[in-house]
């Protein structure tokens, strides 16, 4: 099995020694005042424009991390695709890739289905940020091993579980992103993505 998952129920998100759980309230809280009124969902035109902008942004994110030629050589563009092979370009993702191939989700969800927001805007923004982190980590080899998911990405993940499984968890309040009320799927289903880690 997996283990230790429960810990995140105590401290949603992975905790640095001096962080308090409140620091981990990483998902946007509803801003105060007038902003609470829902904004209209972008029309398809604006959407496309935003997407293009974001692709650029995420490319820049990667670029900032590794620079142009390196970006090319490191197959940076594939990073923007949905193909899990893009992830395993980095041997560091090998373990998760191998696990994923054996996992119950293999046929139904790719890495990005779980690890990037399903809305296009969030998707490329996340990619931009993670692209930067991953490239930096990979290049400098200064990341914590084993890799442990960061609070922000854990929230993305939770949102994705819920959005696919909204029906089955319909009877339960899931509160994604609220560190106090969230029912952390991974507390019990640690192994869904890449199989058991032991």
């Amino acid at each position, binding site marked *: 099995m997996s*283990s230790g998952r*429960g810990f995140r*129920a*105590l401290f949603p998100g992975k905790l640095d020694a001096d962080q308090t759980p409140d620091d981990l309230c990483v998902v946007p809280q509803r801003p105060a005042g007038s902003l609470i009124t829902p904004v209209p969902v972008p029309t398809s035109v604006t959407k496309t424009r935003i997407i293009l902008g974001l692709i650029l942004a995420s490319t820049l994110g990667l670029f900032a991390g590794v620079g142009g030629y390196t970006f090319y050589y490191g197959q940076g563009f594939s990073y923007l695709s949905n193909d899990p092979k893009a992830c395993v370009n980095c041997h560091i993702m090998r373990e998760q890739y191998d696990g994923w191939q054996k996992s119950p989700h293999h046929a139904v969800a790719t890495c990005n289905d779980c690890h990037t927001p399903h809305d296009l805007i969030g998707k490329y*923004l996340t990619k931009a940020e993670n692209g930067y982190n991953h490239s930096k980590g990979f290049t400098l080899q200064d990341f914590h091993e084993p890799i442990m998911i960061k609070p922000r990405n854990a929230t993305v993940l939770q949102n994705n579980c819920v959005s696919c499984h909204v029906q*089955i968890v*319909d009877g*339960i309040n899931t509160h994604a992103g609220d560190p106090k009320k969230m029912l952390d799927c991974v507390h019990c289903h640690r192994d869904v993505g890449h199989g058991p880690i032991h």
Partner: protein
Amino acid sequence: ATIALMLLFQNIKTRKAEAKDHVFRVVEVNDQTADPAVWGKNYPRQYDSYKRTVDVERTKHGGSEAFQHLDDDPVWKRIFAGYAFGTDYREERGHAYMLTDQRETERVTNPKFKQPGACLQCHASMLNAYIDQGLKAGAPAGKENWEAQIQKGFEVVCKMPYSEATKLVEHPVSCVDCHEAESMNLRVNRPAFLTGIRALAKSDQPTPHLPSIERWRKDGHKGEYNPNTDATRQEMRSLVCAQCHVEYYFKGEGKLVTYPWQNGLKVEQIESYYDQVGHKDWKHKESGADVLKAQHPEFEMWSQGIHARSGVACADCHMPYQREGAIKVSSHHVRSPLLNVAQACQTCHRIPETEILARVVSIQDRNKALLDRGEEAVVSLIGAIAEAMKRGATDAELKPARDMQRKAQWRLDFVSAENSMGFHAPQEAARILAEAIDYARQGQLLVLALKPAAITASAP
């Protein structure tokens, strides 16, 4: 600006998902609705499983068959000599039985025990009874005075005679005792629990398994710690149970149910509390020692275990999710997880059911062997003291040995009365039993050291 937009976008999406979270409220249910059948109309799945707590099934060391412990293991008759528990002490069973079992136990029916209304706090849907009595006794009205009303009513009911108090209630623990009707959020309300957990929060004992307490302390002990607003949902999934599955005593003339947590949750910390306040449950009939009775310290034991530290809640194992058609719900058929390993354990432990059962049984069997060893030691001590009394040893001479009995018996009973047969915290339970054995044997040594004197004293 783009970022802000995106965040909002994200936010809307989340709320859309939550909005689907619909339930058909076919009847109006509020905090005054005591009858679970009414709630059940809105939540038929939970209600169905709730009703199934009438089921009877036995496991190797647990389960829900109300057999008589005193027949099963007669040493306990001797250990409880002179106390109500020495007359009737059964294996506990499903929640459905809590009220009738209490009404029918010889510990209540036998008039010599004179039980108070305090007993009811954990055996019935008391919330509304407390509020009613509280209001009657002059507690301020209004939702904002909810806690004061409950507390007042609690004080009134605790000191009533049991026979009278029990007429105030008709249901075992019900929806309203764990849920807030409006949101269905979990909520705690038992006065003894609130007082107890606040005392614990004020202590400086680490509570790694209850991060909200540590946070409250770090934030400067503002006001009183309030589980209903401070605790995470995951903590609440244990705290609702900790309202009842804990060690307690009735304090003073008011018979207030009290949880002895001021110095911490460990066996010796609770003991030190009782020593400080000079509490004893009874004078042992055979040995004359002032002894303590331990009752179902599940919450306390769980607190020392690795599951608690890993954030695994009571409800995770005892009320696991269960598929009901297309959705999953919390099983309200609260019972031994060993009757339901697939849901209760296997999502976290991906190993075969037989292996899970084998692991539990190996932990429990080890614990049982130590319990047997401890029982033998404690009973030997009781015998030794009784023997010395016969030979004329004085109370002053026997004091040290009787103190040892108090310590040993308290520890032994703590593990025995805890209902998981060591599973909730295996190493801790073994440690406690090791101490029980040590103290019991030391008590015997004290008696034996007296022997010549006692012999002299009793010599004609």
